């Protein structure tokens, strides 16, 4: 508990020397024994974690309601979330949980050097997580995958320029600049912190302040880890971008797009433009087989096989075939912008502000609040790191390490649920 720490801060440089049960400096005067102090603090942190669980449950509930009402929006939108980045971040957080649990052990066994190293490793993992996260965020912001009010994603122009943002979507110049260069804005505070720690390190070295130097050394590594995360995210993001393929598969194994097209057919037919063609694709279903298919007599068999849920490849083939046939019969005047047939159009149904926008609103809320918890965790871990360097903790007084560890594990636990719920939707 906080009171223990404020009481002990004056004299606890010598705390590890006093093994007696009389009045060690780290034992607050209102506790009889170290164990009573530890247990009280632990109950306190558990009550705090309960409030955290209840707090996050509000967002999980919003997620559950929207997913229940519009499942197809979640399937469509999770295609934009890079599973590789999510999986790497899961691994990083799990590893930081391991080092945190290990750090608690080291504080109990009084391995001071190891404790410092493990807390610094946990902090570095937190920074790598944030670095990967900022790649994810900036990538989405540039594409306009934003909450409803500012959502501007369009499959035909995935990465609009700054001028297009101002002209087409009504953003101010500075906002458009921010959206197209958001990675720099996300990196800037961390670059400033890293530079600040470097200056601190040099000053501490020059003036011979050993303790400050010992603190600044691991903190510089921690601050630089953020850019390691950014680098890792850049590599994986550039290798993992294949939205197009994902959308083709969706057009095939997903009935919703076609359902909508049929239901809204009357409206769309009169509107003309690119929307007429969704209706036509649905129409053509009834008359398949009139025009000779390149698949020949096998077509019926292929269609039968494509009935199978798992056979996405053949489903795509059938979907493409139907689209081609409707084109061949001259029923469709294809819009040149949508000539990729079914990729952006069928799926395009959900890429609208009120559908995908709401999904991304929920996405930013959940991952953003989680990221704020990571930042808070970084704050308390830095405090812990400095105290560990001061060798404050011993086998009778390791509460703060344990409490921060519990908080850190809860943050990990929330991510364990967030990752499959957001990234792994089919």
């Amino acid at each position, binding site marked *: 508990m906080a009171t223990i720490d404020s009481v002990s801060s004056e004299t606890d440089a010598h705390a590890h020397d006093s093994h007696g*049960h009389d009045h060690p400096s780290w034992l607050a005067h209102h506790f009889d*024994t*170290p*164990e*009573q102090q*530890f*247990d009280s603090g*632990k*109950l306190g942190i*558990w009550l705090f974690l*309960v409030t955290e*669980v*209840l707090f996050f*449950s*509000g967002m*999980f*509930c919003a997620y*559950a*309601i929207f997913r*229940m*009402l519009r499942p197809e929006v979640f399937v469509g939108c999770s295609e934009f979330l890079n*599973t590789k980045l999510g*999986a790497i971040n899961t*691994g990083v957080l799990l*590893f930081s*949980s*391991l080092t*945190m*649990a*290990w750090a*608690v052990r080291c504080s*109990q066994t009084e391995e001071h050097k190891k404790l410092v190293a493990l807390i610094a490793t946990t902090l570095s993992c937190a920074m790598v997580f944030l670095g990967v996260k900022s790649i994810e965020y900036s990538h989405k912001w540039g594409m*306009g995958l934003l909450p409803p009010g500012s959502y*501007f*994603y369009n*499959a035909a122009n995935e990465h609009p320029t700054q001028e297009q943002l101002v002209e*087409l979507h009504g953003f101010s110049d500075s906002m458009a600049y921010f959206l197209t260069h958001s990675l720099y804005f996300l990196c800037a505070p961390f670059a400033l912190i890293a530079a600040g720690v470097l200056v601190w390190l040099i000053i501490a070295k020059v003036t011979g302040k050993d303790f400050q130097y010992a603190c600044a050394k691991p903190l510089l590594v921690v601050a630089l880890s953020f850019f390691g995360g950014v680098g890792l995210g850049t590599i994986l993001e550039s290798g993992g971008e294949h939205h197009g393929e994902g959308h083709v598969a969706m057009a095939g194994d997903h009935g919703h797009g076609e359902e909508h097209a049929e239901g809204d057919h009357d409206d769309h037919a009169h509107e003309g433009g690119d929307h007429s063609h969704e209706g036509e694709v649905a129409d053509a279903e009834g008359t398949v087989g009139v025009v000779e298919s390149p698949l020949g007599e096998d077509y019926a068999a292929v269609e039968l096989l494509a009935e199978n849920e*798992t056979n*996405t490849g053949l489903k795509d083939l059938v979907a493409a075939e139907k689209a081609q046939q409707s084109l061949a019969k001259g029923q469709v005047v294809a819009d040149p912008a949508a000539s990729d047939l079914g990729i952006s159009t069928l799926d*395009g*149904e959900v*890429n*609208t*502000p*009120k559908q995908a926008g*709401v999904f991304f609103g929920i996405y930013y809320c959940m991952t953003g609040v989680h990221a704020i918890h990571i930042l808070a965790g970084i704050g308390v871990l830095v405090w812990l790191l400095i105290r560990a360097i001061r060798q404050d903790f011993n*086998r*009778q007084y390791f509460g703060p390490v*344990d409490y921060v*560890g519990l908080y850190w*594990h*809860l943050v990990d*636990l929330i991510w*364990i*649920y967030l*990752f*499959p719920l957001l990234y*792994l*939707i*089919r």
Partner: protein
Amino acid sequence: MSAHGHSTDDAHSHDGHAEGDFAHPMPMGMLFSVFFALVFLTVVTVAQSNYNLGSFDIAVVMFIATIKALLVGLFFMHLAFDKPFNLIVFLSSFVFVGLFVVITLSDAKMTAPSFENITDEPPVASAEL
């Protein structure tokens, strides 16, 4: 909260601490095996997302996530060796989360037809459109 609660659980203090010690350091082997189990389950959950399991999808995903959460809770958060009261406090929060989510979801389901229609147009792609 009793100062005498620790005496029965000496099996976990591997480092031969003196009588009044209440710290129970987790064995390294356990920490690492829990970590590798968690990584393995992450690989499993990513792999299963490549198969379309239909409506079982969400159930499978949540089942794996819950196993992972149990591993983290029981071992990394020491709940398996902790005072039972902490476990009760923590689990009670999930009772209320359950009540909250179930009641809100059923309300949303019943009132869904009266919601605003939320299909709209994608944003424009270029000035010509």
